[in-house]
């Protein structure tokens, strides 16, 4: 579905991605783990074309998106939905207008049809009847659920999640994890999740890849990652301060 081939990216003198190779399978949830500030978000922004790599290719269904102009890139982006870390809901719009935004932009539908889809997507994330609320009236967990409803409004084939459980309490974390699992299954989605929440990654991931020092140092099924002998993976999973991962 998505192939990331030898991606390099630097900001000034700081090298963030140093030859990332990763295959993301269709219809599965791939979780990318790694340290905070280790380049996970940068990698995710490359997948949807928000950042251009210095070198390398990103193939989405065989199309190299790093070479596309804005118009063609926008066509590819219509296949994607994305849940941002803080949900990135538009403050000036109601919840209903937020979820309806991509539909009003791209789908030729009547207002009645749009309202029906908005209600359906909000029901899917367990938030029926909040269309008239403003984002500022919602809790962190509710904002993320509305963000997910907006991400799936256009029935995308791929959904990207940027640290979906960061900053949530354990109960809401579990609710969001279950929502990701259900949404992936019900909408037959290809999901890419970046996270450093150990419990969540094993709960939601079909495949897990570890990004360290700009490279994918390990990837496999949750069981393979649990059994990995890679010292970086072992230290990360155990949360130990002893090991190859330097504490800066």
């Amino acid at each position: 579905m998505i192939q990331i081939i030898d991606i390099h990216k630097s900001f000034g003198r700081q090298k963030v991605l140093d030859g990332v190779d990763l295959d993301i399978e269709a219809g599965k949830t791939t979780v990318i783990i790694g340290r905070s500030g280790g380049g996970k978000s940068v990698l995710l922004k490359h997948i949807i074309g928000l950042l251009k790599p210095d070198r390398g290719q990103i193939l989405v269904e065989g199309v190299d998106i790093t070479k596309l102009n804005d118009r063609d890139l926008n066509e590819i982006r219509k296949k994607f939905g994305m849940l941002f870390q803080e949900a990135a809901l538009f403050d000036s719009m109601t919840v209903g207008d937020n979820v309806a935004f991509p539909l009003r932009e791209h789908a030729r539908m009547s207002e009645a049809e749009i309202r029906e889809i908005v209600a359906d997507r909000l029901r899917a994330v367990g938030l029926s009847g909040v269309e008239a609320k403003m984002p500022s009236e919602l809790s962190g967990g509710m904002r993320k659920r509305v963000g997910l409803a907006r991400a799936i409004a256009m029935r995308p084939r791929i959904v990207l999640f940027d640290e979906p459980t960061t900053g949530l309490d354990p109960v809401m974390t579990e609710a969001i994890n279950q929502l990701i699992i259900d949404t992936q299954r019900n909408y037959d989605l290809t999901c890419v999740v970046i996270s450093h929440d150990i419990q969540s990654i094993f709960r939601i991931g079909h495949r897990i890849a570890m990004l360290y020092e700009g490279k994918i140092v390990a990837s496999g099924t949750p069981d393979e990652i649990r059994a990995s002998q890679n010292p970086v993976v072992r230290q990360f999973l155990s949360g130990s301060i002893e090991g190859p991962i330097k504490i800066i």
Partner: protein
Amino acid sequence: MNFVLGAVDYVGRAVLHSVEEAGRIFQLFLSVLAWLVRPPLRLRPIFKQMEFVGVRSIFVVVLTGTFTGMVLALQTYHGFRMFSAESMVGATVALSMTRELGPVLTALMVTARAGSAMAAELGTMRVTEQIDALYVMAANPVKYLIVPRMVASVVMLPFLTIVSDFVGVVGGYFVGVHLLRINSGIFMKNITKIVELDDIFNGLIKAAFFGLILSLIGCYKGFNTTGGAEGVGRATTEAVVLASVMILISDYFLTALMF
């Protein structure tokens, strides 16, 4: 020697930075022009911004315009009295308001009110990833966020200037005729005799240009915000300072060209 090299290095960097920033602002302007003519043209966000930039600025524009006209009448009266030229107070107030003070003060007030809000709003949208969300949903932020703000500013500034010109003259009339006892007929006659329609129109062209400057700089600074809440504050301050300075500098050149 090191001190001299350091100073040259500092000045050189500052000049390079300014040139680079001017280039980026011009690039954004070209991008706005390109998106402006690309259909569909959505009127609703433009009207919303026209209300914010124009309608909600009327009170502050009326306040500043009135008192500027009043103080201008007071000052010129004391000066002109030395030459027994009190009858010219009205014309001086009207000419100053229409050519200079109306457009410039209106632009500075709208910069403080709406230009700062544009920078703060877009800056907050940048740091909370709302602008990235627009890109992800294949909606261009320039078309969606910047075009309506710039169109609204260019359209509304001349209207606000008309209001400012009018209340300025009314303020001048009040002080001149009612407080300083200048003959009302002479006050008005000199205005109609000396102030020409071109003075008013050129002032309005200036106002539209200032609207372009304040919205372009406000949007540019907000759109390129980095560094969280502190960055939003910095962008807002820079937008107000840069737009105000550019308004005053461009005012000189526009005046030299027009009058």
